[in-house]
């Protein structure tokens, strides 16, 4: 399988403190790759470096062979990477469908245009994306009154707008009810399979991770300590050990397996 994203020796220090240290991994085409680890392990730092929000202290990120380090988030997005946020980020003064239209206007490079009416632009296209995530019936609602789970779906629709080849999802199910978590994750899995999009996601809900990830990376104190299939990770003694020290417990898992 081809590697769509290659992360090489990615490191980040804040005032001499190593937040992320020489992390290496690849994302293969069509893969759903999970990045897990205890709080403060460096997941968010990693993610922000991949998206251009943070500049790495050292290391490279190759997307389809091109180094992304030093590029702005908006330029990285243009290369074909979409993202969703841990804490939802939507345009609260617009309707649901306008949120998607906004991304489409940006994609078609029309944001400096002053002549046409924006609410008519790319509406059909926007509606198909809403259809995809199950929000079509709420297209004309005010975004600010959407339920939290629906906001997450809307973010997904926005992220799909420019036909990305890679999606970065930061805790896609945080803040949702358990039943909704499963349905949103299933929806994501279906869409990316159909469109052959690769996904890298962080997640705290292990049901979601074990249920959907093809492969799992484990980060602890800024270093990658494991990389393997769901079963590998479940039974990896190093991972269990680290979590014991890092705040979670694993003995029950041992007992179960």
């Amino acid at each position, binding site marked *: 399988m081809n590697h769509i994203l290659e992360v090489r020796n990615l490191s980040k220090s804040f005032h001499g403190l190593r937040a992320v240290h020489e992390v290496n991994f690849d994302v293969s085409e069509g893969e759903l790759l999970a990045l897990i680890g205890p709080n403060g392990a460096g997941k968010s730092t990693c993610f922000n470096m991949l998206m251009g929000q943070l500049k790495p202290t050292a290391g490279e990120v190759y997307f389809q062979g091109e180094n992304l380090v030093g590029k702005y988030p*908006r330029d990285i997005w243009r290369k074909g990477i979409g993202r969703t946020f841990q804490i939802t980020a939507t345009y609260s003064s617009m309707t649901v469908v306008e949120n998607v239209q906004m991304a489409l206007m940006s994609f078609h490079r029309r944001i400096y245009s002053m002549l046409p009416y924006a609410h008519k632009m790319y509406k059909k296209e926007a509606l198909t994306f809403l259809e995809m995530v199950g929000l079509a019936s709420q297209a004309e609602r005010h975004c600010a009154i959407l339920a939290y789970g629906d906001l997450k779906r809307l973010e997904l629709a926005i992220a799909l707008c420019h036909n990305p080849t890679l999606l970065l999802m930061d805790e896609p199910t945080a803040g949702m009810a358990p039943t909704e978590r499963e349905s949103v994750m299933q929806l994501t899995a279906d869409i990316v399979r159909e469109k052959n999009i690769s996904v890298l996601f962080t997640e705290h809900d292990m049901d979601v991770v074990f249920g959907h990830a093809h492969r799992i990376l484990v980060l602890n104190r800024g270093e990658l300590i494991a990389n393997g299939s769901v079963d590998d990770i479940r039974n990896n003694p190093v991972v269990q050990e680290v979590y014991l020290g890092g705040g979670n417990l694993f003995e029950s898992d041992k007992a179960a397996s």
Partner: protein
Amino acid sequence: MELFFAQLLTGLANAATLFLVASGLSLIFGVTRIVNFAHGSFYMLGAFIGYSLMQVLPGMFGFWLSVLLAGLAVGVIGVIVEILVLRPVYKAPELFQLVATFGVILVIQDVALYLWGADDVLGPRAPGLKGIVRIMGEPVPKYDLALIAITPFFLFGLWYLISKTRIGILVRAATQDREMVGALGVNQAWLFTGVFFLGATLAGLGGAIQLPKGGADLLMDFNILAAIFVVVVIGGMGSLPGAYVAAALISILNVFGVTFLPQSTLVLMFVVMAVVLMIKPYGLFGREEVAGEHGQVGEPERPIKPAGLKVRLLVAAGLLLLALLPVFGSDFSQVLTSDVIIFCLFAASLHFILGLGGLVSFGHAAFFGGGAYVAALLVSHVDAPMEIAFLLAPIGAGFAAFIIGWLCMRLTGVYFAMLTLAFAQLIWSLVYQWGEFTGGDDGLVDIWPSAWLNGTTPYYYFTLVFGIGGILLLRHAAHSPFGYALRASRDSSRQAEATGINTKRIQWAAFTFAGSLAGLSGALFVFSKGSVFPTELEIARSFDALIVIFLGGVKTLSGAVVGGASLEYAKDFLTRFEYWRLTLGLIIIFVVIVAPEGISGTLRKVAERFGIIRQREGES
């Protein structure tokens, strides 16, 4: 050398007042996050109250007792303002509260007018400190030396209060994390009131203590406002040592400026501020501000839609009425309506960046006055035909906005607002002091439209076409992809940046666009009046526009126009009375507390409740 030293002493003496007033403002902002525009008014009240007390309390003891009592009296007034006006609006973002404090300014102005009359009051000389002392041959007033000697005690006293007492510890803790202080059992509400008392007291002391040097007059509230803002911003919002260093720096520079470069005095402090902010965006001793949401009060703004048929018909009917005005209205009504339209266009251009973009500019008058001056200068100096001058005015103003926007875009929130203010003041002082080119205080006169527009009615139609045209253009831009991208950048810059929108560049473009439309309104203005004066570039002009936007409703597209028209007509009506500021101030405070959605937003809500307009599902 002797002169140099004497100058230094004068500068330090002047710094005393500036430091007292500015440190109060800084304290209030540090803890409550309120930009207190009424601080200049507290200072003025301190001067007047001090003056009255000195009339009845004789001698040296009486003089200093008066200063102290004036400070405490203003402190109590500050507490009243805090409890009555600010407590109800604490939950709103800081920029909304400044509108309330603006209302307080107007009220205090008229109260002072009523109590002390319109004439300037000469401050009594301090008993026992009346003469001068020769230092190295140069005369230095004794009172200056007393001020220089006293200031360190104030600084020390404040420093002691803030760093050594329990109150000071709580204040500093609250500056950092208000919520946590509350969770540890401290009643923040009273802490805020206490800080307001202290801040107002300092302003009152500052006003009273400068009486022997400057006296008291009704303009001193606005006159000191710009200076204390500059001091607080240069020193860093919320920093006491910063306020002292900046006050000394500004005062000393000012004294030297007067001696060596008299044309520069007004410009100087704003140049210093601009330079400091560009090097240290949060002032000398300030620390980074976390950008907050501005202009967003209560529920989030609603989606916008181009007007429906009904509204369009209504607008068309209104326009028809305006077009027919010369048929049934007087010349005066045409002039008044022109003024209203020009002001509405100016306010609408500010609303574009403030309401849609979330960028609060305190210096929008730079582009209104800028446009007026571009046209006037072209007519005066190169005899440009009116048509050419009229065309170049918005372009010139747009260019100014392009440059200023580029310099200000790095900052956010209050600091952005302050830097725009600094640049606007820079332009104002340039125009004011570069007399041979701009006419200075005398302004530029004889700027009349071409022959085909001569007379009230032709120019009224001209204003109607370009004024309403400009407003409609702004409105259309709000519905275009550009306007949407601007709102997107405000709503969530994270999402916008992550979907390919260069938010800073969009905001910069919008700032330029709004600046050029303000320039258009300035051009309409100058040819309607036939003259232009530096007042069109003043802070007060910028605030006029800011106030009407909040009064009209930040979150409605029509807010600026509704607010602008209401205020202009209200002013025209109210100014017939002697105490119109009081009424206007009370109305502003009333609107801010009772109808935080503004006139437009509140009308819409009322209409929805009674079913006159359809309510969107899920909103209330």
